[in-house]
């Protein structure tokens, strides 16, 4: 375990230093539960966690969007990442939700106005008994609370059916569970339904694929590239009358 300084002279591996000094390590092994989960399974490795293959860790990333604002534990993040990947999977056509960083997008949205329902009418009474689906959103729960319940239910269903966490299941097992959610064959709690959660998750997944990359998803504009959507352009006046399809390199808002 090294405490060497990086090129800028800033102390690296600060959490490891913290751990070492905090007394949470015993003979080099990390004892703490949550922090142990963060740091990865190989204490002593000098390799930053996020460069490990397949790792979506919360630290040492050069992409500032790849940090968590809402989820507090890796398990929840992995559950949403796996569920979003089934909604928008990697295929021959192009990358799926995971490679597009959609779970980071969802995390950021849950931390902000959307997750907190700041621009929605959230005054009571909440008359679920009088509610019909056609009259829309009628729960006192905010979207982030519906996600929390949904994640819990995805994992408890996975546990019941397969004795595993949702993100540890095979793809077709995950799909089968999501279909049950969509069809309300799983009960969340009295204040919202599995299909409500599924609807929000589907909506957020599509948004994460195609929203401007500044929101954390649509990594490298790969969502737009798949669809041949040019993003933010000033004018299409020159091509509007063209009969043939015009392929353009997409531009994000950060290019202005």
């Amino acid at each position, binding site marked *: 375990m090294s405490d060497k300084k990086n090129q800028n002279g800033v102390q690296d591996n600060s959490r490891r230093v913290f751990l070492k000094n905090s007394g949470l390590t015993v003979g080099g092994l990390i004892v703490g539960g949550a922090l142990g989960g963060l740091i990865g399974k190989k204490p002593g490795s000098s390799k930053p966690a996020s460069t490990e293959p397949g790792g979506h860790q919360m630290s040492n990333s050069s992409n500032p969007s790849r940090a968590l604002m809402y989820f507090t534990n890796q398990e929840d993040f992995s559950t949403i990442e796996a569920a979003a990947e089934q909604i928008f999977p990697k295929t021959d056509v192009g990358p799926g939700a995971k490679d597009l960083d959609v779970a980071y997008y969802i995390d950021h949205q849950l931390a902000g106005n959307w997750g907190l329902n700041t621009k*929605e*009418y959230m005054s009571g009474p909440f008359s679920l008994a009088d509610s019909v689906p056609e009259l829309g959103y009628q729960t006192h729960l905010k979207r982030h609370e519906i996600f929390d319940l949904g994640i819990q239910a995805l994992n408890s269903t996975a546990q019941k059916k397969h004795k595993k966490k949702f993100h540890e299941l095979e793809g077709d097992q995950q799909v089968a569970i*999501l279909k049950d959610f969509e069809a309300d064959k799983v009960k969340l709690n009295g204040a919202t339904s599995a299909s409500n959660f599924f609807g929000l998750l589907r909506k957020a997944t*599509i948004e994460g694929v*195609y929203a401007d990359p500044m929101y954390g998803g649509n990594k490298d504009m790969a969502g737009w590239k798949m669809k041949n959507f040019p993003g933010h352009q000033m004018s*299409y*006046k020159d091509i509007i009358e063209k009969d043939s*399809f*015009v392929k353009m390199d997409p531009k994000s808002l950060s290019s202005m």
Partner: protein
Amino acid sequence: MAKKLPKTDIVTVGVGWVGGIIASELTKKGYKVVGLERGKSRSTQDYLKVHDELRYAQRYELMQDLSRETVTIRHNLKQKALPYREWGSFLFGDGLGGSGVHWNGQTYLFLPYDFEIYSKTVEHYGKNKIPKGMTIQDWGITHDELLPYYNQFLKMSGISGEPNPLKGSPQYKYPTKPMLESSEMKLFKDAASKLGYHPYSMPSANLSENYTNPDNISRGACQYCGFCERFGCEYGAKADPVVTVLPVAEKTGKYELRTHSVVRKVLHSGGKATGVLYVDTRTGEEYIQEAEVVVLSAYQMNNVKIMLNSKLGKPYDPKTGQGVIGKNYAYQVNFGGSTGFFDKEYNVFAGAGALGANLDDFNGDFFDHSDLNFIHGANVRIGKSGNRPIQNNAVPAGTPSWGKEFKDASIKYANRTISVGAQGASMPWADNYLDLDPTYKDAFGDPLVRMTFNWKDQDKQLGKYLGEKTAGILKEMGASKVNQGGQKVGDYDIRNYQSTHNTGGSIMGADPETSALNNYLQMWDCENVFSAGANAFGHNSGYNPTGTVGALAYRAAEGIEKYLKKGGSLA
């Protein structure tokens, strides 16, 4: 205790198209106008980074903050109404320019038939054609009488268009040439012509060319950037109140705009308003703005709410049919559109809000309804406003809505999908109406508007008929697969966006027993209150409403001046 402010000639409640037109017309004549706007100020400078689908289209940046105020909705008189908690079916604008900023710019003039719908229906088909409970009535003004005001709006906003080739259709001279024609528009026009229909380019407030209007306001041409609907125009090419009428009012020195000002009530006694009570949302302080004339120029639903909360006019009772405030609420029948899937790729991302082509062969009374169990119809159109990727993921019927198959199909067809829409007319019914909700309140403790509305057989039959027509056009256009619309329609579903064309609730007419406003948009029951929004429509036509709202605003401006000169009822 509300603070009293010095009296002005005219106060407008809301600064969108109606508030803007009233401000410009009456300040030009030398009157003092105060504009109260609940939202913030804004200009083209605020749209530098407007090409953001998530922020503007999915998160409704330009729309009213529902946490402060919304409406409640139920399907029938027996149900308990529940709040419209998140945006879905329709969107109300907020901030300077109101819905006149986020509109698409599709600018139509209603048909002569629309203004005399009751008389013409009876004349053509007899009284029995009107089903029990349908409360259509004439508007108390004819198309010819309204035409000069329509022309004022067309010239002020610089509408681009071409003549409607349909025999018997009203003819207008548009001030600017039609928009450029895309290959999808050409395909639609060719197919429609082959089927014997009469297509023409959509009349557009997105300027086709640089234009200077009669008020000497110059604006540049549209760039077809594809971010129009739900967005403000950074070029000022799309006509909105902020780039057209408001600068004219400001220049006179007679206009005072106050943003962040929410009007709660119109104060009145003995059939005359004294002014309005409003809250400055930045300081929390209440003010009374006294005025000779009060103009309710907010969004349709909010105008009705203020009338009801102010106890202006007699509320409508659906059981007796008596009363007028809340009566004849109507919407738009948009489920008759169809979606076609093509082998060829089109530049679907490019476009403008009012770019498109349309036909009126199935609109109004241009076709024979003798053997049909509905009246009126729809403007059938192909809109090319620019398909954004989050909102547009159409897949052929039978494709799942998520997973591998969905993903691959939604990407394959992303640039191979063309929709033909049908903007169906919505008729008023005795039990589709607006009143105050007994339970839910806004941020100031005032009752919300309660909307009681559901689709009727008329709507379902109309939608089914239009679905056949729109699917037929797509097949002629060469679509390999078509999702035909209008075939299965359940209860009104607020979850999916349909149209922001809410109309009625305080309608104009010739008789104070059956209408709230006379044909100068003056309240029968309160002579110095005017309201020229879509709330004045007796029913909703097969067109977008803004052209008619604009014409009625010019008509109201003339009425207000007449009233200020001689007082009393103008009709």
